[in-house]
């Protein structure tokens, strides 16, 4: 909402300190987004007349304009706008003019032809918001005169307010001024006219029939008939105000309508009486009914849209949004019907979003206008219009049709005075409450026995319905800063939960492996999961994705990480190690998906042994165990270089290399080692607290054994057998060397193990060691391994 300083000051004497006004508005919750100086005169811009225009064969986007700036000398200017014709008066920025945007007008032209100045648009001069072409000046101005003084442009300041949804009253000057005056303890008054208005003539009764056929959508529909209308230009001050508010001046009637809307927050619409003299029908549209609105656009409606129709049921406007073409004021209009209505906000909002049509009127109806402010608005309309229509007659009668959908005039709510302290933390006495609320239109009764008051809510505050709304008003006018700051002492033990602590430990562990954290997009393109060797059948789809390539919700972190590897490889980054801790969202059996958290670590240019190394370290560090199932390769993994991590039927994750076809699909080169863990399982587990075992005081005995082991026997299987054979004196057994090649038959490899035996109560004897050694050898031989 753009608020002009000069206009605001007509409601109360807010003074000239612009920064102080902005600070007060912000404190009230009317956040000031910007404060802009307008109408600062640009020295050197004069009134000039267009003599003729001329195209140049080598310049398509500009033309040559010849002007006279009052000295009778023809000047030549290049111009990129084509909206002027010979005889028009336009603003000419003469050579050397410093434009508001910092440009200095120079002689430099194009095609070797100089330009003796520049023709200006309204926005370039900061006069109007119209940037569509060169500003065409009123024909009566004197050539060569300074444009700003000739137009009577005043300097002003525009505050751009961010008006929140709970302040429907503040999309108009009156509401803003009321709040500000209350805050500054100033009396509020309604603006006077700049000149004494002619006494309005009361005309004879002229009733208009109104038939409301959608009571729940239209609560009130009033019409005032005025005659003696002459459609002409608005006075300069009205045109200037509208321009600065971002609206284009059109004619005196439309401009007054807009002015009243801005000033009193009361949308209104003036019809040519001739077109609607038989009356109005307010009804819902028929399915697919087409209406041409006054912007000449055909709009197809649905049964949920509300229409204003003439007595023949032909639409003359979409209720609360825009009038129709054909019934609006024209140059020949002499009598008008002024409609001021109240439409149900949610219905208007739904039509706005369905039609994609948002207007100054709909903006206000959507939030809720004062259902009882129509009469004052009609009077103000007539008063302003009489400035240009001295013979204006306001007729009695008209219409004021009300339905059951009309909000009540006075709404009340109970306010328990104790609630103020309970919610705000400060004591506000009842007299102070009354002082704070009265200037913004809220009245309170005397406190009753239970220390409650009845608050009467003004009709212009439809947002306020209950006690807490009133407490907010008290807080705003008491002042948020004045409420103070008290740090509550938390009785709760602040901490991360066990799950959250364990997640952090896992992150630290993965970082120590050398992996960096990626955050890929959780939205995938259709087909990404399939390209990753996974099914898309259990994936959720977005109903309204931004782009189709981001419409599938991931069920795996792998597609995103593989894309990240490919991206980094294409930028020739070395040592690509990435991980992500994130949610996946496979469809579940409940309303919400089976959303869970996953850890995925990928190392480019690494094979399955790296993945196993990661898993064995992860398992040992976090105390997480699982069986390795190499027979059933996880989907998307290399068929013979991967394993499922399982606990019985529960799949904990996967370890190994990514399937080469998948890598090719994602444009990844080299092997990729991957460890994937379902964190929702692992994080919930509390690691066992280890009980200490006393370290043996007796020396250990170590020996190594190397076996030639057929390829069909897994090293892990052999190690498991060796451990069993070692018995309870075996304290450590590990694979420390793997050899293939000369001296070892094909389809086999040499695996060397190191054993350590130790007892807690004695030094082991020679024979015990020899026994253990032969038990190990026998166990290996049973699996087909031979001692080397």
């Amino acid at each position, binding site marked *: 909402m753009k608020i002009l300083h000069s206009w605001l000051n007509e409601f109360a004497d807010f003074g000239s300190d612009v920064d102080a006004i902005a600070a007060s508005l912000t404190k009230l919750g009317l956040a000031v987004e910007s404060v802009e100086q307008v109408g600062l005169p640009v020295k050197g811009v004069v009134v000039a007349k267009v003599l003729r225009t001329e195209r140049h064969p080598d310049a398509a986007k500009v033309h040559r304009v010849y002007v006279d700036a009052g000295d009778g000398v023809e000047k030549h200017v290049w111009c990129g706008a084509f909206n002027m014709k010979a005889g028009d008066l336009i603003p000419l920025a003469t050579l050397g003019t410093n434009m508001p945007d910092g440009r200095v007008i120079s002689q430099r032209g194009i095609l070797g032809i100089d330009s003796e100045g520049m023709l200006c648009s309204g926005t370039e001069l900061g006069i109007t918001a119209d940037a569509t072409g060169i500003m065409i000046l009123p024909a009566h101005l004197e050539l060569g005169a300074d444009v700003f003084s000739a137009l009577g442009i005043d300097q002003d300041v525009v505050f751009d307010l961010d008006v929140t949804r*709970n302040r429907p009253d503040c999309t108009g000057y009156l509401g803003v001024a009321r709040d500000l005056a209350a805050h500054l303890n100033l009396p509020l008054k309604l603006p006077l006219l700049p000149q004494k208005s002619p006494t309005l003539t009361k005309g004879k009764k002229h009733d208009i029939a109104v038939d409301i056929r959608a009571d729940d959508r239209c609560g009130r529909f009033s019409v005032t008939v005025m005659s003696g209308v002459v459609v002409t230009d608005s006075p300069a001050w009205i045109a200037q105000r509208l321009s600065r508010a971002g609206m284009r001046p059109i004619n005196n009637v439309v401009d007054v309508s807009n002015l009243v809307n801005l000033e009193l927050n009361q949308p209104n619409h003036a019809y040519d009486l001739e077109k609607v003299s038989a009356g109005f029908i307010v009804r819902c549209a028929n399915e697919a009914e087409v209406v041409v609105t006054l912007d000449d656009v055909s709009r197809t409606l649905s049964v949920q849209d509300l229409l204003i129709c003439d007595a023949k049921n032909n639409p003359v406007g979409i209720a609360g949004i825009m009038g129709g073409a054909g019934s609006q004021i024209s140059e020949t209009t002499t009598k008008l019907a002024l409609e001021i209505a109240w439409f149900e906000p949610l219905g208007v909002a739904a039509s706005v979003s369905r039609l994609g049509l948002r207007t100054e009127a709909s903006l206000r109806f959507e939030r809720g206008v004062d259902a009882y402010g129509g009469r004052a608005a009609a009077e103000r309309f007539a008063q302003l219009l009489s400035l240009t229509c001295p013979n204006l007659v306001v007729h009695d009668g008209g219409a004021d049709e009300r339905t059951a959908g009309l909000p009540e005039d006075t709404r009340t709510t109970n306010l328990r005075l104790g609630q103020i302290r309970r919610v705000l933390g400060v004591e506000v006495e009842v007299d102070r409450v009354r002082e704070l609320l009265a200037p913004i239109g809220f009245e309170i009764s005397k406190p009753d026995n239970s220390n409650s008051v009845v608050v009467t809510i003004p009709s212009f505050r439809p947002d306020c319905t209950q006690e807490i709304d009133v407490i907010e008003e008290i807080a705003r006018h008491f002042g948020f*800063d004045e409420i103070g700051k*008290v740090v509550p002492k938390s009785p709760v033990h602040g901490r991360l939960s066990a799950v959250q602590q364990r997640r952090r430990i896992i992150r630290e562990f993965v970082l120590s492996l*050398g992996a*960096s*954290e990626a*955050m890929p997009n*959780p939205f995938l393109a259709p087909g990404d999961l399939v390209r990753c060797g996974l099914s898309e059948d259990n994936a959720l789809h977005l109903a309204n994705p931004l782009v189709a390539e*981001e419409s599938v919700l991931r069920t795996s972190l792998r597609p995103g990480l593989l894309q990240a590897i490919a991206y980094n490889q294409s930028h020739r980054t070395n040592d690509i190690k990435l991980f992500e801790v994130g949610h996946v969202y496979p469809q579940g059996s409940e309303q919400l998906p089976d*959303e869970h958290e996953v850890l995925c670590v990928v190392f480019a240019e690494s094979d399955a042994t790296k993945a196993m190394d990661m898993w064995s370290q992860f398992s040992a560090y976090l105390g997480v165990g699982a069986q390795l199932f190499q027979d059933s390769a996880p989907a998307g993994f290399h068929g013979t270089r991967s394993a499922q991590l399982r606990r019985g039927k529960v799949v904990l994750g996967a370890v190994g290399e990514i399937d080469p076809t998948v890598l090719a699909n994602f444009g990844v080169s080299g092997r990729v080692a991957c460890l994937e863990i379902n964190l929702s399982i692992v994080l919930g587990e509390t690691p066992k607290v280890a009980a200490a075992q006393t370290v043996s005081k007796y020396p250990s005995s170590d020996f190594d054994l190397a076996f030639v082991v057929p390829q069909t026997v897994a090293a892990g299987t052999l190690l498991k057998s060796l451990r069993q054979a070692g018995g309870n004196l075996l304290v450590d057994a590990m694979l420390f060397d793997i050899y293939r090649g000369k001296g070892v038959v094909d389809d086999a490899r040499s695996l060397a193990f190191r054993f350590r035996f130790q007892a807690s109560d004695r030094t082991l004897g020679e024979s015990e060691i020899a026994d253990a050694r032969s038990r190990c050898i026998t166990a290996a031989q049973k699996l087909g391994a031979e001692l080397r």
Partner: protein
Amino acid sequence: MQSDATPDVGTQVEAARLAALTQIASATDAAMVTKIGSELAGKKSVLNTLRASLGKIQDPEARKLAGRVINESAQQVEAALQQRIAEFLVQERAARVASESLDLTEFATTNRRGHSHIVTQAMQRLEDVFVGLGFQVAEGPEVETDFYNFEALNMPRTHPARSEFDTMFIEPFSSEHEANTVLLRTHTSPVQIRVMQSWEPPIYAIMPGRVFRRDTPDATHMPVFHQIEGLVVDRDITFAHLAGIIESFTKAFFGSEFTSRLRPSFFPFTEPSAEFDIKRANGDWIELGGCGMVHPNVLRAGGIDPDEYTGFAFGFGIDRMAKERHNVEDIREMYTNDLRFLRQFS
């Protein structure tokens, strides 16, 4: 006898002493000194032989004198030995150090530690600050129902403010006005309701997490981003407490020279509602987030009686904090997963 024997012993001792010192001086390394030392300490060494024959001297005075002379000489020899060994140890250590010279910059890094994402870093710093202020951390699902994302937050199905959230919906989807619609949460506020439903007051909780809006990515917006939300519900919690927590957080997180203010605003789920701004050291106010007293309807939706308890809530974006802390020009850069970007931040 005495007059004969005394000069004889003295001379022999002096000769033995000089011989030993000469021998020690002539040694060329520590090992040789040690070898000489063990010979001199042996029974057959001259001094020890002389000491052994002391008993033959009859005159007690003379015997005492001879004994003292022998001891003194032996001490001198021992001192010379120790000194010589020490000299050699110093020399040998110096020689070894000189010979073992190593260029410390001559190494190849094998396993570099990975880098945490700057959004995670910011989230963890925020969690730590709030834990210090007595908060616990709550989490909730990213795919949510209409009830938790809107309805329970005082935005019934017809509420106009819903349209401002640019919600992304999950198929099957007919209309956002349908009950049981499933969507991607547009804020972390649904977790407030889940916490109120499952925890008992007093509640001091923060809720960090990923949220989604149907916003075309640009330099300052991503459709997928992160927020942190705070919720306090207890008896006698007031707006002044909200302002107090915001101030404590501001000082703890940004530094003691920072200060905060609240100014009126509007959110459907809080009332009174406020924006909170923080003031930088240079005097500029920057807008940080939204907050307010939990609306009675929201407390009720969470199963909490507003006549018994009051509460406040606050929330703000995490990505912007990470972006500003590290002067990232374009927020999209944070999500390219480019290791050249990620590796800049330790």
